[in-house]
C-alpha cells in the first residue's frame, strides 16, 4: 500500500454548497411527492367532503352555492337505517375477520412451522382467494349455497340429509368474507413467522411449555403486531367490499354500509350528498381503526432480517400432520374447487334450474352458448384489453410511486415524511364507489382531456390502492437491513447508485409482489371504475357487473371464469418471475450464521 497521501483541501470548498444542495434536494423531493399526493388523494377527498357538506354536485353547482351545512351528517346519524347498516357492517366484518384470522393464522403456522406434507400447495391455496373478485365470490356462493336450490343443498337433499345451508344470512356472509379475506392474515403472519427466530420457541419448550402453550404464549404474542396489522387491514378492506354483501346480503335483507351507499348512488334520483355523508362515517370508523393500530403498534419493531439468521424450524407433527393436511385440502375444496365448479356449471349450463341431483348431470343441458354470446359482444374483448392495459399502467406507475413513497417514509430523513405517511394511508378509508364519484368530480374539469381516457382509471386505482401497495412494499423493504445500504454508501456509491445496485435487487421480490397485488386489485376494482369508464374504456369489472345486473347468471359465470383464468395465468407468470428473482435473497435469509 502506498504511503500517506497528502489530503487535499479542495473538497472543503465543495462541501458547503453540497450541504445546501442536499437540503434543497430533500425539500424538492418531498415537495414533489406531496404535490403528487395532493392531486391523487387530498383534492378528491376535499371534493368529497365538500359534496357531503353542501348537498350539491360540486361540478354542477360550482362553488357559488357554497352554503356549508352539516345537515347531511346529522340526518345520516339520526337515520335508523344507517344505524342498522353500520351495525350489520361492523358485525359482518368483525365476524368475517375472526374467521379470517382463524383460517389465515392456522395455515401460516401450518406452512411455516410444521412438517405437513404438500406445504407448497397449501401456501398457494392460502393466497388463491385473493384473486377472486368479490362479486364473483358472491355469485359462486349464491349458486352453491342459496337456501333452496344451492348445489350443496341439492346434493344434501339427494343424500337424504335434512341439513341445509343458507348463505343468504349473516352467518353465511361472515363465513364467505372470512374465507376470502384470510389471505390478508396469511400474508402478514406467514412472513412474520418466517422471520421469527425459532430459538425463542425452543426456549419456551425447554422451559417446560408444551407445543400448544408455546404457540399461545410465545409464538403468537411475538407475531402479534403482524396479526394485528393483518386483522385490521382485512377488517378495513371488508368494510369497503360491495360484491359479496350485494349478492348475499340483499336477498336476506341484510343491508351493510356499502350496499346502502350503492343504493343511494343507484337510485333515481341519486342521493350523493347522503352517500358522501355515509362514506365519511365509514371513513371515520376506518380512520379510528388505523389510528388504533398505529397506537397499539407504536414502539414495536418489525425489523427482522439481518446478516444474522437462523435455520427455519419445522415442528414434527407426527400423525397429526395428516389432520393439518386434511384441513388444508378441505380449505382448498371449499374456497377454490367448489366455487370454481359452481362457476363452471353455471357457465356451461343453459339454465341454472337444477331440480335434483340427476338433473345436474344431464349433459343435454350443457353447452358453450354463454361463451359464444360473451365473445360475440365486442365489448367483452375490448374490456379485457382495456383491463390489461389499465392494470399494467396501474401496477407499474403505482408500484414506482409506492416504492418512492415507502422508501422516503421508512428510509430517509427528509422533511415532511410523516405527512407523506399519513396522506398516503387515507385512501384505505374510502369505499371505491364514493371515491369514484370524488375522482369524477375532481378530475373531470382538468384541462388536457384526462377524462374519457384509460389514464383517469389508472390514476384512480393508483391513488385508491396506494396504502395497500406501500404496506406490501414496506414490509419487504423494512426487512432489508439498513447496514446493507450503508455499506454501499461507504463504498462510495451515491443514493441513486445504492438504490439501483443494492436496494432494488434486494427488494425486487417484494416490488414484484406489490406490483402483482396492485395489478390484481386494479383488475378487480369495480366501485371507482363505475364512474370513470367511458365507451372506449370499458373494463372487465364493470362489464361483469352489467352482466350480473342484467340477470344472466350464465354469461356472468362465463365471464367470471374467463377473468379467473386470465388472472391465474398472469399471476403464475408474475410468481415465476418473482421466484427466480427471490431465490438468492431467500437463501440469504435462510442461512448465514
Amino acid at each position, binding site marked *: 500500500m502506498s504511503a500517506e497521501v497528502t489530503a487535499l483541501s479542495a473538497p472543503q470548498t465543495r462541501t458547503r454548497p453540497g450541504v445546501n444542495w442536499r437540503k434543497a434536494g430533500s425539500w424538492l423531493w418531498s415537495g414533489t411527492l406531496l404535490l403528487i399526493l395532493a392531486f391523487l388523494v387530498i383534492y378528491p377527498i376535499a371534493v368529497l367532503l365538500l359534496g357531503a357538506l353542501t348537498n350539491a354536485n360540486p361540478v354542477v353547482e360550482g362553488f357559488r352555492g357554497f352554503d356549508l351545512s352539516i345537515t347531511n351528517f346529522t340526518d345520516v346519524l339520526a337515520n335508523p337505517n344507517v344505524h342498522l347498516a353500520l351495525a350489520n357492517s361492523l358485525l359482518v366484518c368483525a365476524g368475517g375477520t375472526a374467521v379470517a384470522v382463524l383460517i389465515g393464522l392456522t395455515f401460516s403456522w401450518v406452512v411455516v412451522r410444521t412438517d405437513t406434507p404438500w406445504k407448497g400447495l397449501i401456501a398457494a391455496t392460502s393466497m388463491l382467494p385473493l384473486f377472486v373478485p368479490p362479486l364473483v365470490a358472491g355469485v359462486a356462493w349464491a349458486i352453491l349455497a342459496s337456501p333452496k336450490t344451492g348445489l350443496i343443498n341439492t346434493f344434501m337433499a339427494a343424500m337424504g340429509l335434512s341439513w341445509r345451508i343458507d348463505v343468504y344470512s349473516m352467518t353465511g356472509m361472515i363465513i364467505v368474507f372470512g374465507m376470502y379475506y384470510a389471505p390478508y392474515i396469511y400474508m402478514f403472519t406467514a412472513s412474520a413467522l418466517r422471520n421469527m427466530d425459532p430459538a425463542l420457541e425452543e426456549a419456551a419448550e425447554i422451559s417446560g411449555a408444551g407445543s400448544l402453550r408455546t404457540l399461545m404464549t410465545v409464538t403468537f404474542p411475538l407475531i402479534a403486531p403482524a396479526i394485528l396489522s393483518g386483522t385490521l387491514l382485512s377488517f378495513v378492506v371488508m368494510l369497503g367490499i360491495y360484491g359479496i354483501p350485494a349478492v348475499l346480503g340483499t336477498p336476506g335483507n341484510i343491508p351493510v354500509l356499502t350496499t346502502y351507499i350503492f343504493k343511494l348512488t343507484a337510485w333515481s334520483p341519486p342521493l350523493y350528498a347522503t352517500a358522501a355523508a355515509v362514506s365519511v362515517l365509514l371513513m371515520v370508523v376506518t380512520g379510528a381503526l388505523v389510528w388504533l393500530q398505529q397506537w397499539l403498534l407504536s414502539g414495536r419493531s418489525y425489523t427482522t432480517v439481518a446478516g444474522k439468521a437462523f435455520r427455519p424450524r419445522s415442528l414434527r407433527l407426527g400423525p397429526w400432520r395428516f389432520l393439518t393436511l386434511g384441513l388444508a385440502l378441505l380449505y382448498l375444496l371449499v374456497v377454490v374447487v367448489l366455487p370454481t365448479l359452481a362457476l363452471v356449471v353455471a357457465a356451461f349450463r343453459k339454465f341454472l334450474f337444477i331440480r335434483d341431483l340427476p338433473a345436474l348431470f344431464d349433459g343435454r343441458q350443457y353447452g358453450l352458448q354463454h361463451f359464444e354470446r360473451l365473445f360475440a359482444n365486442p365489448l367483452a374483448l375490448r374490456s379485457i384489453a382495456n383491463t390489461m392495459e389499465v392494470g399494467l399502467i396501474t401496477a407499474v406507475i403505482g408500484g414506482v410511486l409506492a416504492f418512492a413513497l415507502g422508501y422516503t417514509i421508512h428510509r430517509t430523513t427528509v422533511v415532511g415524511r410523516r405527512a407523506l405517511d399519513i396522506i398516503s394511508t387515507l385512501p384505505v378509508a374510502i369505499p371505491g364507489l364514493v371515491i369514484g364519484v370524488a375522482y369524477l368530480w375532481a378530475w373531470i374539469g382538468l384541462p388536457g382531456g384526462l377524462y374519457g381516457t384509460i389514464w383517469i382509471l389508472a390514476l384512480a386505482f393508483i391513488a385508491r390502492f396506494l396504502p395497500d401497495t406501500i404496506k406490501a412494499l414496506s414490509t419487504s423493504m423494512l426487512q432489508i437491513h439498513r447496514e446493507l445500504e450503508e455499506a454501499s454508501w461507504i463504498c462510495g456509491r451515491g443514493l441513486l447508485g445504492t438504490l439501483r445496485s443494492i436496494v432494488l435487487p434486494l427488494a425486487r421480490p417484494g416490488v414484484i409482489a406489490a406490483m402483482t397485488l396492485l395489478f390484481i386489485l386494479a383488475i378487480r376494482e369495480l366501485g371507482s371504475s363505475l364512474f370513470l*369508464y367511458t365507451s372506449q374504456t370499458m373494463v372487465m369489472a364493470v362489464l361483469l357487473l352489467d352482466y350480473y345486473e342484467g340477470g344472466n347468471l350464465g354469461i356472468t359465470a362465463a365471464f367470471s371464469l374467463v377473468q379467473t383464468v386470465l388472472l391465474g395465468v398472469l399471476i403464475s407468470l408474475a410468481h415465476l418471475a418473482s421466484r427466480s428473482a427471490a431465490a438468492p435473497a431467500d437463501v440469504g435469509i435462510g442461512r448465514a450464521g
Partner: protein
Amino acid sequence: MAPLGMFRHLAKAAVAFTVAVSAATGAAQAQEPNFGPPELIEAARKEGRMVFYTAGFTEVEQEVIAAFNKRFPFVKVEMVRASGGQLITRIKTEAAAGKLIADVIDHSDRGLMLEMADLFQDYAPPNAADYLPDSHPSPKIWPRITLGWVIAYNDALVKDPPKTWMDLTKPEYGNAQIGQVIAPSGGTTWTRTMFERQVLGEDYWQKQAATKPRLYPSGAPLADALVRGEVTIAPSLYNIVYSKKRDGAPIGIVFPPEGIPVNPYADAIPKTAANPNAAKLFLNWCLSEEGQAFMIKQFGNLTSLKKPPILPEGFDPKVAKVWLPEFSQYEKLRNTWVEDWNKIYGYRQ
C-alpha cells in the same frame, strides 16, 4: 313543453293507451319505412359514429345496436351503460364540466330526464305523431323503450300458478315463494307499485306483504332466482323473463287481467352532441315501426306507439290492458308512497 294539464287529462282517460287489436298484426309494413331525409342519412354517414348512454341492459342494447347496424352499418355506436342514479350523476357532472360525451341519452326515469330538458336539443322522429302523447313528457324526449310488468313463475315448480295480481296476496303463495323488486329501485318498479296501490286497492301492499315475499334490489337477479327456483313466483318485467323463456328456461308468464303497468323510457339528444345526425338516425330507427317491432319480438318490450306493429307473444290486449301512470302523480306521490312501501314491506333503506 306541453302543459302538464294535458297529460293529466289524457291519462285520466286512461288507461289511455289501449292497444288496438285490429291494427295489430299483418298490415304494418305497408309503406317503405321512413328513417329521415336523405341529407340526414348522408350526414350521419359522414359522422360515422356516436356515443350512446343507456340505463338498459348491456346485452340487450348490444343486440339493438347490431340490428340498427344491419340497416345502417356505417354508424358505429359506442355504448356507456350505468344504473339509473349513476348515469344521472355522470350526465350532470359531465354536462357541468362541458364534457358531455353522449350523443344519445337513454334513461328509465322520465322525471329525472325532464329535469334536465335544458340540456337537450329539439328532436322528433319522423313518426312522432304515431306516439301516445302521454308516453313522453317533453317534445324533446321520446320513449325508445316501453316495458311492462307481468307475473312470472317457475313452471317446473309451480303447478297452480296465480292468474291475477290479487292472487299474489293469497296465503298459499306465502312463505318467501314470491320475489319482489324493491319499490325504491327506480322508475319502472315505482310505476308498478303505484299501479298496485291506485288500481288494486289501498290495502294491496299490506295483503301482499303478508305473504312475506323475498326482496331483490333489481329485476334481473330476481328473474335469475326465479329460473333457479330460489323463488317460484315474481312480478317481473316482461322483457326480462321473455328472453329466458324463449331460450328454454322453465318460466311461465301471466298477463294479469287487472292491467299491465308500463314504463316508457326517455330518450333525448344533448345540445352538445358531437354527432347529432348519427344520433337522430339511431333514434329514428329505434322509434320506427321496424325498430319497435324488433324490440318487441326480440326482447319482449311493449311499445308506446298508438298502433303497435306487432303484439308480444301471449299478450291479448282484450284481456289485459296496459296502464300508464298519470305523469304529475307519478312525480308527486313518489317519495311518500315509496316510504310507505318500505315500511309495509319491512324494507330498510
